[in-house]
């Protein structure tokens, strides 16, 4: 068993990280932090998950979210998709393994992956609305969010959701408020089978190795860790029984990366665009200086008068 984190404090406890630990800030820059925090990570072991949704309940309760009571829609996945009030979701897939012909019920806890290279942050136009701490947590500052939905386009995992009520973007915070006092996220605390564990990223990788060995010994020859390099690795990782095909787990991207379109839009376009517009303005000014104003002459006026008097010319 992974050592449980002691019960939370009830007396004032100083935050263990804060603004001084920012490494990225949307649409703005931050000074490099004095010292880097040890990167943390949440490890989700899909092979241990029983799909009980304790993580969903704990998330709703801890974050005081009010999700609507929906309807049955032909699966155990409820609500059917992430919402501004559901930061996490169990996604159920009934998959028949072509090699063994056995049914495998793949249950993946979906939610923010806390990318090392966060597409949401890159896309965000509002300074400081999305921040990244040196421990890897990517968090939203709702007082700064303008609700444009650019983060949704920036995210390779389709995670952020825009509230139709307050028009702000919402997603898993990795329970930054809990981590700040030395706790793990609410979902990890609740998880009955320790399918979710939380610690430093190195510990999580080490712990995952043990799990993968166990899975291989049980015949899952492609068991492995999901820590996609395309986004610089993530601070939420999966242990998958079939790491060779992540997409069977309710469409987990095989090779996630920030969309090249978003890269182009937020990269070259931004600068070239300004350049072109600037050039146009300057060219105009320059032309005026060289050729001077294009004035109507007295002769022109006379010609016009002659014409209107009917005089031929």
């Amino acid at each position, binding site marked *: *068993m992974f050592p449980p984190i002691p019960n939370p404090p009830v007396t004032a406890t100083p935050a263990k990280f804060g603004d001084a630990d920012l490494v990225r800030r949307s649409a703005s820059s931050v000074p490099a932090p004095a010292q880097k925090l040890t990167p943390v990570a949440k490890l989700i072991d899909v*092979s*241990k*998950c*029983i*799909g*009980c*949704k*304790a993580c*969903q*309940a704990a998330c*709703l*309760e801890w974050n005081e979210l*009010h*999700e*609507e*009571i*929906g*309807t*049955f*829609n*032909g*699966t*155990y996945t*409820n*609500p059917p998709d992430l919402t501004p009030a559901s930061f996490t979701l169990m996604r159920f897939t*009934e998959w*028949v393994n072509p090699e063994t012909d*056995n*049914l*495998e*019920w793949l*249950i993946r806890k979906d939610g923010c992956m806390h990318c090392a290279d966060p597409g949401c942050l890159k896309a965000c136009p509002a300074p400081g609305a999305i921040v990244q701490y040196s421990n890897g947590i990517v968090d939203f500052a709702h007082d700064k969010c303008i609700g444009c939905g650019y983060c949704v386009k920036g995210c390779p995992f389709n995670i952020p959701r825009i509230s139709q009520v307050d028009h702000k973007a919402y997603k898993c915070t990795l329970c930054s408020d809990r981590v700040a006092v030395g706790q793990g996220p609410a979902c990890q605390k609740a998880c*009955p*089978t*320790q*399918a979710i564990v939380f610690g430093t990223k190195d510990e999580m990788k080490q712990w995952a190795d*043990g*799990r993968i060995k*166990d899975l291989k*010994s*049980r015949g899952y020859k492609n068991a492995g860790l999901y820590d996609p390099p395309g986004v610089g690795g993530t601070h939420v990782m999966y242990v998958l029984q079939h790491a060779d095909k992540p997409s069977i787990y309710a469409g987990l991207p095989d090779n996630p990366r920030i969309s090249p379109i978003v890269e182009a839009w937020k990269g070259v376009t931004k600068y070239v665009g300004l350049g072109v517009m600037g050039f146009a303005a300057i060219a105009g000014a320059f032309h005026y200086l060289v050729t001077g104003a294009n004035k109507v002459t007295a002769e022109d006026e006379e010609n016009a008068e002659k014409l209107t008097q009917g005089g031929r010319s």
Partner: protein
Amino acid sequence: MTNSWTDIKNADLVVIMGGNAAEAHPCGFKWVTEAKATRGAKLVVVDPRFTRSAAVADYYAPIRQGTDIAFLNGVMNYLIQNDKIQWDYVKAFTNASFVVKEGFTYQDGLFTGYDEQKRDYNRSTWDYEMGPDGYAVVDETLQNPRCVWNLLKQHVSVYTPELVERITGTPKDKFLKVASMMAECSAPNKTMTSMYALGWTQHSKGSQNIRCMAMIQLMLGNIGVRGGGMNALRGHSNIQGLTDLGLMSNLIPGYLTLPTEREADFNAYMSTRGFKPLRPNQMSYWQNYKKFFVSFQKTMWGPAATAENNFAYDWLPKLDVPAYDVLRAFELMDQGKMNIYFCQGFNPLQAFPNKAKLARALGKLKLLVVMDPLETETARFWENHGIYNEANPASIQTEVIQLPTTCFAEDEGSLVNSGRWLQWHWPGGSPPGEAKTDVFIMSQIHLRLKEMYRKDGGAVPEPIVNLTWNYKDPNEPTAEELAKEMNGSVLTDVLDPNDPTKKVLEAGKQLASFGLLRDDGSTAAGCWIYTGCFTEAGNMMARRDNSDPGDTGAYSKWSFSWPANRRIIYNRASCNLDGQPWDDTRKLIWWDGAKWTGFDVPDIAPTAKPRDVGPFIMNPEGVSRLFTRGMMRDGPFPVHYEPFESPVANLIAPKVRGNPVARVFKDDFAQFADTGSKEFPYAATSYRLTEHFHYWTKTNHVNSVLQPEFFVEISPELAKEKGIANAGWVRVWSKRGSVIAKAYVTKRIRPLMVDGKATHIVGIPIHWGFVGAAKKGFPANVLTPFVGDANIETPEYKAFLVNIEPTTGPVA
């Protein structure tokens, strides 16, 4: 549970059959994943549905609901045929060698002495041959053709893998795989644990389902050892406690039983409960029955219970029937033979079978009293909710009083978990509105009755006016006062017979163990098995030291475990005949040459020599029973009986319908679908989803979000056959009622080939009703049959027949 949740981490093989631990007990299931992760244990799931437990299992085998005995008898046959038996254990610790009386036979699904009219057996021949020495005759060599082992061998020989497949629908290869995995655990250093729940109890032969696996566990030597045992995963937070405390028709706290009419006087009563040992030197612990009983009577009536009046024996009611169980209660209600009914934190309109009958019955009461923290359907059975509860209030004369009670978060006291731990808890919040504790309500009722009977007299006032009620505040006794009463105390000094100046026991002191109880009225104990929970040393149930020497999973200093803080019962059996552990890597207790010692409290007299005294001290044999004598109404060996509603006739005994001795009321029988009915061709089963807790979480927003709407589960094959679309509306109906639900077409349910014919399964989750936060929906008991298990009357919720068709949405 014979073991504890935390002990499951010691298992090498976990078999989940007749239950769904991952779904119903996720945090207990943690210890299965722990055994897998740290011991490389394997998990096997046998279930009609591919459940959440199956989702993380190493091996899954499907089975038709209600055929577990055929499967497990088949396993026993496999173990015997392949000699996968832990022989030292079976020979020394079971009654395999006991010789059974002449005249006992088994034929065509029935044992000797069946009376078809009474639907009962004359069980006189179901017993041991008694020798001249007054002890049962045994044959250590197991040569005697009439010894238990040979009778068993013959009894299970018909359950070949081929027959098992024909009855259960489990493909032969899958059955053999499961059997062989179990067989590996016959090695002394390999243990298997059985985790089961309502999937086994909710059948007309539920008790025998469980016996089957218990017998397998004995053959494999897995009872009493770490990582083994028979682990009943109790449903509710204190259902173990309420059973221990005898809140049942025929019980007295501590599994003593109420007298019956046949026991006209105290001596007659005691004579049937003395339990002399059946073999030399055996402890036969029930010999102390009188001490427990008298101490209980003293708790009830104190000074008014005297030797002269047989300790108020006559103040206890005497039963004329085995029990007034819930099914009988509602049958009587429906016959208009009941006037007042109390529901204390219980919602029978949803929880018992055949909702239509229940509603009708409640309507015939004069007064219904509901004590509950939450709104229940029962309290509003008279309210019209369209298709969800059609009722005409004007025509229902029942008066209903609804009393708001506190919930766990607002009260103090102890709960007994499935592993028999009594854990104390403290209140964390103030009750809402005028809500009061159940203790307040019960006290108020009693004090009012007492007062009226004292003033005006009435029918037999004595038991009421003399009931001991010495609490600081009689209006609402504290949890501590009541806990001390359960534990028991010394009423009068007990002097040392050798030295009368010495007090063995001092009046007023809390008792430290039930070993100190006496049958002369000098001690009182509300529930003898709890004695030791609140001693002079304080409240043992509130202990919170979670250290675990030896990393055994026992946690002996955490709370208190009955009996005597023992964590694994029958733990003497974890050692061989010489008192040494079968497996050195899994030590629990051992014989150090002079006494028993170890990590757990030995389940045997500390100085009882290993070879002299058997490990099963509650049994007069001193050993466990592969043959239960006359103790179960439906046979000393388990037999496969079909459910009362079955798609096929019983292949081993075509003439037998259901369990031949299960009690069925006349009108209910008329409401059963025929065997192999064309009208109701599909085998249905009901169950709970992990997001829900029975009908409670209907009132709870978050859980209603996680699984919002009533649905039924069917296979893609059946959906195709019936033209049912996933998430489309269907009507499901049985001979008792009809429900409308969404359909969940899932690969997790597959038709099974039963005796060459495809049998479709319809899964019906429970939870929904007409009050609460969740969407209105139908409860499964609209459909389920009104019949119970032959021994303990648990309703047959797990196997019945329905039909299904696509339909349009409900118009409510």
